[in-house]
């Protein structure tokens, strides 16, 4: 589709002869996903649509308690330290950003009065500034008014490297100015195509200046409000036992009329995905459960109970395998899997290519994940125009055998291939979760047939995904040959997401293994393309650059994508909730109600 055609269609939408929905459908038909299609409309002064849940109750309160089950329990409530999704969900109940993403990727204002557009003067023509108008009359839970000072403060707080905020990447390169009490201006150093990042969604939750002013920088972790939040959200904090239970009660002065519908909220942690699904779908003890990575078979059976329903929404999350090209068994300067080392066998591209051919993605999707994922060979799958059309997957043990034969890996007496005394024996690690162990078993069997021996290792999820520097089993340490997990794409734009393929993000001892590039692989071409994409305002060119980054890693067979995941949640039959694949589950929790 050419520029002019899109412009024509935009004109039709403006005139009213074409509905927003049909516009987005037509865009989808040519491979432009909803979030970007709606951003195109914004750039052209058509107001953002709204795919949020229509709110029916006519008064606030009265619906009793809302009981949510997060089977990975929240441990802290400051959104700027919340690297785990569980903590982001929990803090979003109390804190709010200026705007959030709905399930179609539309930007929905929350603490902002309106979404900035060119028409309302919010977006500058050169793409360097965004002006946010704030909603008047918003109050913090302690009664103080919410103003532009709080927004500016949040920027100062998060950008300070000493604060060590998880969100710092969104704030360190921008400037934020207060225009008046209810207007703030965000200034980017360069034209920024994806402007809806600072103050938006997960990374954008606004902190109250009067509570956090003394805790900027090194003292940030001492703030009492890290565990006892005072925010603007629909529920006021009552009690929190980290790792166990979080309770709150309805905030009477909430800034949206008649919301929230529930009198109190309870967020309970613990258990596993299956028991969480059971508590909602079968026994009905809870109203809502999150992140149900449960085998399709089990989920279907639970649904027949009729007490609850599941909802699956598209997201950019991806389940994938990393093949470690560094040596996990040699220690250099106090760390293993250091970029200074080379893996004895996986550094051979032929071996990596063979392993990629040994993954039966279709069976994994069909028999294990079901609605939970779609088999893919591309790391980025949503929004659709960022998905590589070149990457294809294939399952063929014969081809894998042929490649290994040609590369000189000969089968030994024990059936394991070897060359120069180096055997193709790998440790394959993931977190403990039934679908993942099944996937491991399937891949192990195929590898065995090709003369590659895998040792399966599973680590309990709370250890595997923790950022504990002392623990050798965390996923960022990569002290193994192969590793499998899901990484979440927090926004309907893959730029920030793809920084895990850049050389400056490589996880190492130096950055306490907080670097986003866990695979430790890097390619100057990928770095170059990524940097170019950051400043590219033309959406098509930018997409091409980002696709290139994705392809470099997938074609090197360092990153082996398995499934493009959907987010699956379960809710009681009478609970109306607003589930978005582009924001956390609690992004619009104020609008939840019971029928």
């Amino acid at each position: 589709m050419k520029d002019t055609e899109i412009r024509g269609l935009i004109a039709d939408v403006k005139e009213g002869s074409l509905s927003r929905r049909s516009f987005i459908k037509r865009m989808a038909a040519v491979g432009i996903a909803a979030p970007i299609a709606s951003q195109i409309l914004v750039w052209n002064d058509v107001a953002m649509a709204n795919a949020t849940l229509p709110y029916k109750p006519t008064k606030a309160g009265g619906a009793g308690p809302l009981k949510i089950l997060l089977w990975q329990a929240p441990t802290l409530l400051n959104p700027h330290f919340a690297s785990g999704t569980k903590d982001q969900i929990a803090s979003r109940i109390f804190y709010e950003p200026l705007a959030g993403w709905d399930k179609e990727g539309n930007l929905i204002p929350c603490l902002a009065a309106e979404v900035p557009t060119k028409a309302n003067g919010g977006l500058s023509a050169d793409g360097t500034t965004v002006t946010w108008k704030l909603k008047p009359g918003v109050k913090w839970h302690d009664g103080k008014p919410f103003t532009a000072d709080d927004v500016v403060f949040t920027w100062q707080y998060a950008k300070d490297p000493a604060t060590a905020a998880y969100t710092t990447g969104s704030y360190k390169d921008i400037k934020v100015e207060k225009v008046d009490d209810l207007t703030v201006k965000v200034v980017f150093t360069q034209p920024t195509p994806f402007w809806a990042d600072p103050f938006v969604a997960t990374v954008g939750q606004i902190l109250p200046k009067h509570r956090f002013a003394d805790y900027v920088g090194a003292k940030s972790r001492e703030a009492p409000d890290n565990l006892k939040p005072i925010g603007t959200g629909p529920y006021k904090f009552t009690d929190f036992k980290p790792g166990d239970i979080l309770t709150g009660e309805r905030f009477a002065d909430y800034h949206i009329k008649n919301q929230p519908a529930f009198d109190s909220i309870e967020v309970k942690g613990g258990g596993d995905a299956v028991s969480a699904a059971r508590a909602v779908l079968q026994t009905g003890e809870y109203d809502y459960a999150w992140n149900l990575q449960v085998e399709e078979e089990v989920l279907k059976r639970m649904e027949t109970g009729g007490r609850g329903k599941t909802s699956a929404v598209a997201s950019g999350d991806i389940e994938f395998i990393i093949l470690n090209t560094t040596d996990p068994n040699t220690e250099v300067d106090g760390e293993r899997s250091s970029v200074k080392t080379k893996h004895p066998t996986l550094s051979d591209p032929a071996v990596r290519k063979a392993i990629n051919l040994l993954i039966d993605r279709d069976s994994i999707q069909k028999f294990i994940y079901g609605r939970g994922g779609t088999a893919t060979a591309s790391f980025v799958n949503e929004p659709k125009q960022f998905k590589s059309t070149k990457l294809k997957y294939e399952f063929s043990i014969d081809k894998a055998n042929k490649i290994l034969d040609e590369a000189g890996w000969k089968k030994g007496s024990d059936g394991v291939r070897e060359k120069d005394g180096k055997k193709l024996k790998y440790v394959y690690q993931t977190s403990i979760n039934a679908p993942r162990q099944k996937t491991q078993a399937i891949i192990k069997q195929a590898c065995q047939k090709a003369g590659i021996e895998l040792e399966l290792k599973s680590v309990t999820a709370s250890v595997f995904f923790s950022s504990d520097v002392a623990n050798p089993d965390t996923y960022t340490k990569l002290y193994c040959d192969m590793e499998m997990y899901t990484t979440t794409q927090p926004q309907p734009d893959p730029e920030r997401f793809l920084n895990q393929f850049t050389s400056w993000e490589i996880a190492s001892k130096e950055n306490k293994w907080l670097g986003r590039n866990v695979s430790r692989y890097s390619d100057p071409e990928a770095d170059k393309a990524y940097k170019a994409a950051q400043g590219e305002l033309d959406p098509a060119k930018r997409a091409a650059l980002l696709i290139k980054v994705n392809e470099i890693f997938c074609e090197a067979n360092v990153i082996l994508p398995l499934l493009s995941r959907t987010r699956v949640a379960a809710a009681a039959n009478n609970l109306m909730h607003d589930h978005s694949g582009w924001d956390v589950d609690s992004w619009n929790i104020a609008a939840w109600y019971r029928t």
Partner: protein
Amino acid sequence: MAGSTLASPSVDPVVAAPASAPVSPGRETWRRFRRHKLAMISTFVLAFLVLGVVIGPWLWPIPINDIDFSAQLHGPSWEHPLGTDDLGQDILARMMYGGRISLAVGLAAMIVATIVGVIIGAFAGMSRKYADPALMWVTDLFLSLPQLPLLLLVIYLFREQLKALFGVEGGVFVLIVVVIGGLRWMPVARLVRAQFLSLREKEFVEAARAQGATKLRQMVAHILPNALGPVIVAATIEVSAAIIAESTLSFLGLGFPPDIPTWGRLLFDAKDHLDSAPHWALFPGASIFLTVLSINFIGDGLRDALDPRRVI
């Protein structure tokens, strides 16, 4: 107490029964053991299970990891006598493979715990000076150690080294046996010490001492055989505790690799499918149950058979 009642043929005066040949202690024990019906049945059950896991894989040569999506969660049939799991893998084959590990872990950990416990208990019980309180302090210290954190620590520290020495399965096996055995000897030690404290003052020990028996000989030849009854019962309990501890470790992801189907692992995998495919959990569960139960009964029977004061 001991020896005052002439309760069994072996202590009958030999002169009084000239017709029958002298009965050896071993045969006497066996005679008494056979009287315990449940213990006899249990012996057969356990023998069946052990034989099953030892020679079973030769008779049923289906690979344990043969994935067949066309046979997911099938119930028992001629093709798969114990049914299949959700990857279509044969549960009978997996159980026989896993049973070897589970039973071996249980028995080996029991032997380690019992040997350590008996040695420490015996020395503490025989000592009349500082060794007894010192050894009991050590026992109390071990009892007060939080087991799970210690397990985690030991496993993190030594897993890699042992893996390099004994291979993946061997390394974990040695580690689990040593750790479970090393953390469960305390009850045995206390039992043995208590037995020794009372037995060492008995007339037959004094008689032995008067004849010049060394301390070691008193311990090994005279006191220990009389103290064994309770030890055997405690040891049988250790077997079941070790099997269960191994499943706990597998559950935490610290035991054997997830694709090695120990009985505990099979149960863990099956728990999500209890309502639709009960056979998957039932067979390994029943095996653990039967093993533990029969070992306990055998222990019971052995205690009765070895107790010289009991008339059977």
